[in-house]
């Protein structure tokens, strides 16, 4: 039996004014029809750091993540403010295509297109109107290097992306996202479909990418959150309960529900 926890007592960290933030949400609510899936989520994400979102299945962490680059448009109703460069990007008149170029996303299951490795990466660049072969080739190499995949595929760029292993496919998806040179990279359980060795590679890639990008990662795996993130947000039944530095969350959780989740009482 899941204990009833109070949603009143939360421990949400805020940041000093001099900490540069990449993204900030204010009282975000998400509704799937009449189902209120996310309550008052107010979180700030410091630049060039990895923030992990943890919690049990159905806690709303993926819902929250997908709202950040408006991937929930047409699926759910998202209210509240999402601040990005001092613009509320949750306004209806904001260009969602532009947002997604700056806030990239990698999904739970590797989802490369049924095209060659090269075509996968230049797909979005072409859509943006870049045609120069030189520029495209440079971007392909740079983003594949960024995702630590270059050495494995450089001789087979025209091979189908579907012939790659799951871990390689996921790194290709990361490469595809960073080819757009976004500010923020959202990752929705990127390792849940991967084996441990591929997972290590993706984690190493993320640690390297942190230098250039702000990373927000949803993960089911508490060890993974502990290994890679600087701060951690714990979600429970559509509420953000605790948001603290990762070291604090795992050694000294502030509220009972986090303590129970961290110690494995549920989830």
């Amino acid at each position, binding site marked *: 039996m899941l204990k009833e926890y109070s949603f009143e007592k939360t421990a949400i960290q805020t940041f000093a004014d001099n900490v540069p933030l990449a993204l900030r949400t204010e009282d975000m609510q998400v509704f799937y029809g009449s189902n209120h899936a996310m309550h008052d989520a107010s979180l700030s994400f410091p630049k060039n750091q990895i923030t992990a979102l943890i919690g049990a299945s159905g806690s709303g962490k993926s819902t929250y993540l997908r709202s950040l*680059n408006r*991937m929930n448009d047409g699926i759910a109703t998202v209210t509240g403010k999402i601040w990005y460069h001092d613009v509320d990007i949750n306004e209806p008149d904001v260009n969602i*295509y*532009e*947002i*997604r*170029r700056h806030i*990239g*996303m990698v*999904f739970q*299951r590797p*989802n*490369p*297109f*049924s095209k060659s490795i090269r075509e996968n990466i230049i*797909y*979005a660049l072409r*859509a*943006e109107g870049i045609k120069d072969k030189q520029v495209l080739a440079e971007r392909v190499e740079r983003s594949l290097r960024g995702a630590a995949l270059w050495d494995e595929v450089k001789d087979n760029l025209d091979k189908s992306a*579907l012939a790659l292993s799951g871990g390689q496919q996921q790194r290709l*998806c990361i490469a*595809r*996202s960073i080819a*757009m040179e976004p500010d923020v990279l959202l990752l929705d359980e990127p390792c849940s479909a991967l084996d441990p060795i591929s997972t290590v590679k993706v984690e190493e890639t993320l640690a390297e990418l942190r230098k250039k990008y702000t990373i927000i990662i949803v993960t089911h795996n508490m060890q993974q959150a502990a290994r890679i993130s600087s701060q951690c947000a714990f979600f429970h039944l559509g509420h953000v309960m605790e948001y603290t530095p990762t070291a604090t969350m795992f050694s000294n959780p502030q509220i009972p529900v986090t303590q129970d989740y961290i110690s494995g009482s549920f989830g």
Partner: protein
Amino acid sequence: MEQTNSDLKPNDARTDDWTARLHRATRATREDWLGRGISYLCIGVIILVVASMLWFITSKGIATFTQNHVNLWKFISGTNWSPNQGQIGALPMIVGSFAVTFAAAIVATPFAVGTAIFMTEIAPNKGRKFLQPVIELLVGIPSVVYGFIGLAVVVPFMRHLVGGSGFGIISATFVLFVMVLPTITTMTVDSLRAVPRFYKEASLALGATRWQTVSRVILRAATPGILTAIIFGMARAFGEALAVQMVIGNAAIMPKNLISPAATLTSQLTTGIGDTIDGTLPSNALWSLALILLLMSLFFNALVRLIAKRGQLSHER
């Protein structure tokens, strides 16, 4: 109840019992045999029917060449169709059939794909609630009704528009366009719906617009399915007899343009079948037309299978 290990192990005295026991027929095995027998019987009957139809049409169809000693090449390339005078050049009907089939497919495909995109990507709810039933209704309308509308509306319209009798390939194309549209549309809708959601999501997450996503990812992934849909539409157009016969004018002469009366393989079959005596050249010649129709539908089928195989390869992950 407790069973020890030794109870289960057959000892010397019981070994034979167990052999017999584990080999005898029970209710379960008999049911198994019965079920298998029934389904073998059904498939046997079907195979027999199909095989005898194939044999029948083929043997009748080749009689023109084996008994009446008509040259096969002359049959296919000849342009004079007067079976009673011994002239059976089938080219006018072959050309007519292909002309209406391709023309109908070419005209119908853009409309069908556009409608399917609207139904799946632009307004999926309206598509499912309103358009789907409408299109399914169109599939169910008997072809004689289409032919009748063609005769009453399309033919006079063409007569006013371009002159002449109004009967001809263009009227047949128009009627077939309406008839194959629902076929191509429903199958295209199915293949668009079958495109995995993650393709669309991946594209949108990269900042691609909805139109870029549809044109470069979804349509690309659905191409084998759309091609299959078009071929099914063509097969339907190729095989349609009644509606075409009512509007094409039924003149077994080489079509000079799109508005002069012409004939297709099917329309010539339905027109001529009542006037012939079994076993004579005019009758055998019609069977030969039927054989061409049969071969063409086998060809369409083979094409669909080929595309399905190719499509499978490109979707593996």
